[in-house]
């Protein structure tokens, strides 16, 4: 889809985020009927998804599905930013890792309840995103990619400092422990490592993220973002502030990455500098690319596929080689990633069927 600045309604105030997030008029993507249909579909997906543990009885596979959803949420945050703003980030592990560490420190060192810790972790990651975003969204393209990478690596270096060893555990990492009586969504810490028990928390979080991203993407704000992505200069000449929308998108994206980080820390009950590492940053970006940026669910599919492949191929000793091959295949042969290829294939099939029907008349 190629949306240009001309398609953005000219009456939208350029610097008012509330107005930008208002539903677009009928015909421009987010009318009342579409919203209701979308929400209805989300409820169905939510309810159906809650039965996944009944279908997948194997704990290993259930673990892969849960890990895939958590990585998928992180990949969604990166995919949203890339698709809507054209900003490719290699530094979202900063928010993912910061949130994971925030949760671990709040529960283990400060004895906060896990629910308080989740709120703290996600808010903390979001505020970090806002602050960092204020500096980096001005520099799109390769500069943005390099800056985000540098910030992620800086945070990684920060947590391994010996001076903060008591707080972060440095290279040894930090166990997440919370009170025996405390629960998250009815789950005690002793049960949270069980993937089937943890699944509803991950799945509900995922569906909420998908709905939010879908609504934002289809709103006026989403259209403005796309206009800026397509031609920033033209958007600016048309009277739009191109900085604030990108900052909002970056902050929203960092909030979602923070949610993924909090979920990861809860499930693993352990955080280590790996959550902030370049490898994790690469994993999430590759998952988003392999799944496909162009659709909302592409990064999620990429996350699940990535975790499954990692689990199956890690024993080979050549995991990075296979990861590289998968990336090349996705970029060269699957334009739009896996989901893009599937939807393209479906469209082509429909065209062939319709052509044959037409020829048969």
């Amino acid at each position, binding site marked *: 889809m190629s949306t240009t600045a001309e398609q953005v309604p000219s009456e939208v105030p350029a610097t008012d985020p509330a107005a930008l997030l208002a539903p677009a008029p009928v015909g421009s993507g987010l009318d009342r009927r579409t919203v209701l249909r979308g929400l209805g579909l989300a409820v169905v997906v939510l309810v159906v998804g809650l039965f996944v543990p009944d279908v997948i009885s194997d704990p290993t596979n259930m673990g892969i599905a849960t890990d895939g959803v958590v990585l998928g949420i992180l990949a969604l945050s990166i995919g949203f930013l890339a698709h809507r703003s054209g900003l490719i980030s290699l530094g979202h592990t900063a928010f993912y890792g910061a949130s994971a560490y925030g949760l671990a420190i709040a529960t283990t060192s400060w004895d906060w309840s896990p629910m308080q810790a989740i709120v703290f972790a996600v808010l903390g990651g979001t505020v970090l995103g806002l602050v960092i975003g204020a500096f980096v969204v001005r520099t799109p393209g390769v500069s943005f990619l390099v800056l985000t990478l540098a910030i992620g690596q800086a945070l990684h270096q920060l947590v391994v400092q010996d001076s903060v060893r008591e707080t972060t555990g440095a290279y040894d990492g930090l166990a997440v422990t919370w009170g025996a009586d405390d629960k998250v969504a009815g789950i005690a810490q002793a049960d949270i490592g069980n993937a089937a028990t943890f699944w509803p928390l991950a799945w509900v979080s995922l569906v909420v993220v998908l709905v939010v991203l879908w609504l934002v993407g289809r709103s006026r704000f989403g259209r403005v973002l796309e206009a800026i992505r397509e031609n920033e200069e033209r958007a600016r000449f048309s009277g739009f502030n191109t900085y604030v929308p990108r900052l909002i998108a970056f902050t929203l994206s960092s909030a979602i990455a923070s949610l993924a980080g909090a979920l990861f820390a809860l499930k693993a009950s352990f955080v280590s500098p790996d959550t902030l590492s370049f490898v994790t940053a690469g994993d999430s970006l590759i998952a988003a690319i392999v799944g496909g940026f162009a*659709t909302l669910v592409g990064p999620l599919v990429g996350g*699940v596929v990535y975790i499954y492949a990692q689990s199956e191929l*890690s024993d080979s000793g050549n995991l990075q080689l296979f990861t590289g091959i998968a990336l090349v295949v996705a970029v060269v042969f699957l334009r739009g990633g896996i989901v893009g290829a599937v939807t393209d294939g479906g469209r082509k099939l429909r065209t062939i069927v319709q052509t044959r029907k037409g020829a048969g008349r």
Partner: protein
Amino acid sequence: MHKKLLAAAVPLMAVGAMTGCGSSSDSGSGGSGGDGAPLKIALIPPSGGPLAVFGKDSTTAWQFAADEANANGGVDGHKVEIVTSQTDGTPAATVRAARKATQGGARFISGVITSPENGALQQQLPSMNAISFNTFGKDDALTGKQCSANAYRTVQNTAMDVDAVAKSLEKLPATKWAIQAVDYATGRTAAKIFTAAAKQAGKQVVLTQYAPLNTTEFGSYITKIKNSGADGVFAIEFGADGVAFVNQGAQFKLFQGLKSVLGFNMVSEPLFDALGDKIEGFYNNIGYVHQLDNAKNRAFVAAWKAKNGGKDPYYVQADAYLGAQTLFEAVKKAKSVDPAKVKTALDSLSFDSIVGQVSIRPGDHQILRDSYLGQVEKQGSGLGWKVINTVPASETQPQADPSCKL
């Protein structure tokens, strides 16, 4: 709308298809542990990186122990089966591999090398109904703040090693010491304990200096040591830093004027060939040495050499073998491979091993075994260890780590 429905259905289909719907197996509730049930052990070493060699050596030793046990009719009648699953060494991948292995029936896990991997695994062990044996990671936190009811360490921890070195100080000829330490928790802790021990032994610390981890240029540090009037150096430098310090110290002729060069985790068997004769006479903490004079060790070394082209086992292999021995003894005591029964047996286990009498401390699941101070000497065509001092566990770290809440 159809396109949207398709797009929304894709993740659900992917989750179902990729993870193989409805496969059945036991859900981690433990094996039967009954007569004839195999003793299945999962080893999860890293497939690459600088520590991969240690993972490989651990695996070899576990397999050696398994073959040895099976040749004698198994452990209390249970055939030992080893399954190895390599990972990229990240905590998440290691935990996934462990979960997969436990799903396949393995209830005992080892071969995990790094601290973050061990730390992450230890938190998940109860939900997997599995028991881990850490035979490599020495970080105190693993039997301290990060301890787990299902995790056991069969190698000395850092505190034990540092105490062993400090308690051997009287046996070393130097009286004026310079401390060269990595600017890291272990470096600072070791320097502090050493300084106190030196004072108690009537010796003097004339210089203490710290170099950041990954220092490659030690010239300025070496100059300060030479100008300090020290006749002994206590060096806490690991891996590449240790190699750089030794090589540059030799170039600067630092060691020629010293009575004692004492290392902490600085020189070990894998580095003997690389460092060569320049480390002859160096002292260092050691956890295991193949010359230990007891019947179990003599038999182990002889069998190992027979199977490995005449090569002596070094500490990584011996520590892994000790981990296997610990598990086997617990299974014999429990008369079962059921993890709950084996765990009960482990909590009060004491047995005669290749490193003498050892026991598991119930308070933090740390094994209690001797630590040693060794000196590098010429042995045959290469270098080897001569044991200078043996420090029992009752002197190195007699109490369980109070931060461990099992």
